[in-house]
């Protein structure tokens, strides 16, 4: 099979690392060759972060080139725009309907762009998910990452992987149930048949 490229982007502290851990664990156990790349260090302090996951029969480069991501999962709205140049023609964007102002916005030096989601929808096949809100409703805002992962897993459509089992073996025991719920919820938010860039969830 050809290599599939998944790009996870967000802001330091949003839980992209857990998602990439679950994702790569499932893929490795299913027998794929997998490479994953993320940058640690300065970016952890509230900066923009990205995790790149590539899988297939044989993967060489650990990083995804511009115009080559099959799916971008953005944990924050503006970050989706920042990394959109990595999306391939016909690729899909899953975006969390959440705005986190960056330091220049907070300091009043810049204004957070107004119509981020409209721009995204115009430019790419975009699925908007209120992951943070859904997570709050489930009782823990932190599981927004797994809500998004649920949607991603649905789009990836790999029937050979039991993702809930992988989640159960990855998160701490006391958080297993809520993460499973978050995963189901994320899956349910992806419609059976989708028209390109048309619907809002």
């Amino acid at each position, binding site marked *: 099979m050809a290599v599939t490229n998944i790009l996870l982007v967000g*802001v*330091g502290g949003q839980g992209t690392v857990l998602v990439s851990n679950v994702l*790569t*664990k499932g893929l*490795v156990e299913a027998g794929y*060759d*997998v*490479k*994953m*790349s*993320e*940058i*640690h*260090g*300065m*970016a*952890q*302090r*509230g*900066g*923009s972060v990205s995790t790149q996951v590539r899988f297939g029969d044989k*993967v*060489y*480069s*650990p*990083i995804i*080139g*511009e*115009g*080559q991501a099959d799916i971008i999962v953005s944990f924050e709205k*503006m*970050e989706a*725009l*920042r990394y*959109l*140049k*990595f*999306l*391939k*023609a016909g690729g899909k964007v899953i975006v969390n309907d959440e705005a986190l*102002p*960056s*330091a*220049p*916005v*907070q*300091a*009043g*030096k*810049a*204004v*957070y*762009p107004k119509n*981020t989601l409209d*721009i995204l929808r115009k*430019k*790419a096949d975009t699925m908007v998910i209120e992951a943070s809100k859904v997570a709050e409703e489930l009782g823990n*805002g932190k599981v927004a990452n797994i809500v998004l992962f649920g949607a991603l897993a649905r789009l990836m459509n790999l029937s050979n992987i039991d993702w809930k089992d992988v989640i159960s073996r990855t998160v701490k025991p006391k958080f297993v149930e809520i993460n499973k719920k978050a995963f189901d919820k994320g899956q349910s938010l992806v419609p059976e048949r989708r028209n390109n860039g048309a619907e809002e969830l």
Partner: protein
Amino acid sequence: MIMKELMTGNEAIARGVYEAGCNFATAYPGTPSTEILENLSHYKELKAEWAPNEKVAMEAAIGASIAGGRAFASMKHVGVNVGADPLFTYAYMGVNGGFVFVSADDPGMHSSQNEQDNRNYAPFARIAMLEPSDSRECYEMSRDAFDLSEKYNTTVMIRTTTRVNHSKSLVEYGERREVPIKDYNRDMGRTRFDAVPALSKKLRVELEKRLKALREYSEKSPYNFIEWNDKRIGIVTSGVSYNYAKEVFGDKASYFKLGFTYPLPIEKLKRFSDEVETLYVIEELDPYLERHLKEAGIKCIGKEKIPAIDELNPDIIAKALLGQKEDTIEVDPEDIISRPPTLCAGCPHRGFFYELGKIKNIMIASDIGCYGLGGAEPLNAKDTCICMGGSAGTGHGAQTIFDQKGNGKRVVAVMGDSTFFATGMNGVEDALYNKSKLITAVLDNRTTAMTGHQENPGTGYTAQGDVTTAIKIEDVVSAMGCKNVRKFNPHDLKETKDTLNWALSLDEPSVIIARYPCALKKYSNEDIEKYGILNKKYTVDEEKCIGCKACIRTGCPAIMFDTDKRKAYIDTVQCAGCSVCAQVCPANSIGLKEAR
């Protein structure tokens, strides 16, 4: 038993070092190398330590090697500069127990002050060099490097880059092999490890003989292999660039993959170049391979096409050599606001920089660590940063010139606790000894924060979790003869301001120590006893808020301004309860959430 796992390069290096029967591992934290020693610290069969700096790490590992143990050190690229003094001399001596160190370079400067290409160190110091391209090679090369070191009597450098250290790929690994510690006696010391000129002259000649043997090894090393495909294009490459090249050219080119990159297998490379029509050298940063090939008379195309600046990737290679570029979706740059890293909510550095940034006619000489972020808007409290531990030294030099100019400008050097213990204290010595008026502020957050919370000589714990002596910064500077030493709580703005004003009133060197644990740190028992746990939440009373944005000017990521309501508000999930915003509010509108 063979186990298979997805590992980062750093995890794989640690596994390889462990399996090689390494006895002693030491490092100073630095991105992208830090996790190597962190992973090694979990293995109880070996001693794994944080050293105060890379020079000491290099020396301690050399001492362990001389005494007959298998010894390992790891550091980031700029750390090798610090450790270069012992390295260059030990290179003359060979080894007793195997000696291997990692230089983790950072092309593209993801988290560094420069992007020096440390492959240049190998021919400079005349030591063997291995360059892994993925986690499997990180593991195998680290495991085998000790045998190589002992067999060829040489220091071995494993040179990695951020993408190799921090990307994950599959590794099949095995079990630890115990290797007996070799004998040592004074006779060996005096004849091999005592760098007096008479002996060094002899060792210098020996060194060339060792290099000759290593050159022969390089020609047959399994790490230097050829993959024949289409012979119209031949590609010589090493490290992560090999994966990028394969991504771009696939089986449309033949490859000479180099893993043992000093000394290079020149004869084998010549034979490869004879077989291919066009020879490309695909490498990141400097034309290291290209220079060696051209010196040997091998015609090749390298840096005339591929940039020598910044991190390489498949896109750059495809564009440079094939003129190909994928179609991409364009986004108006106006719609993307930058997102630089910031000091965290509850960071104890915030209060200090808030007060420091308000002082006029000072130069702020900063250093390497989280406090470097004090230079960002809106705090804007930084002039310079050069290198690890460099603040007091540069501060002293600058203060001397300002004094000569007579403009009354004062210099405040800023460093962290780990930085002080690393090499920062040497700069303080300079200021004290040479009678500078320098003010040195040590921001002691009880950990090495930027690299992810490592212990240091001031924290009271070792890398492997043992309780140890906690060296006190105030005791050190007092013992050095500093008469003006004060400690303060940086979350208390009045105390912070008073301390700064006191230091500025002095015509002598002073050391002021801001002490409060990092907001992200896992508090030790001592921390909890001394500081309690910050679990309060602050909130803005909208009725009282006058919309003046004073709280916004602390740069706390938990405080935001609602431009419609013209009121500030606090994200209580992020708020760490440091109270700095409440102290700056002129309308007394910020208070504890519980109290409302």
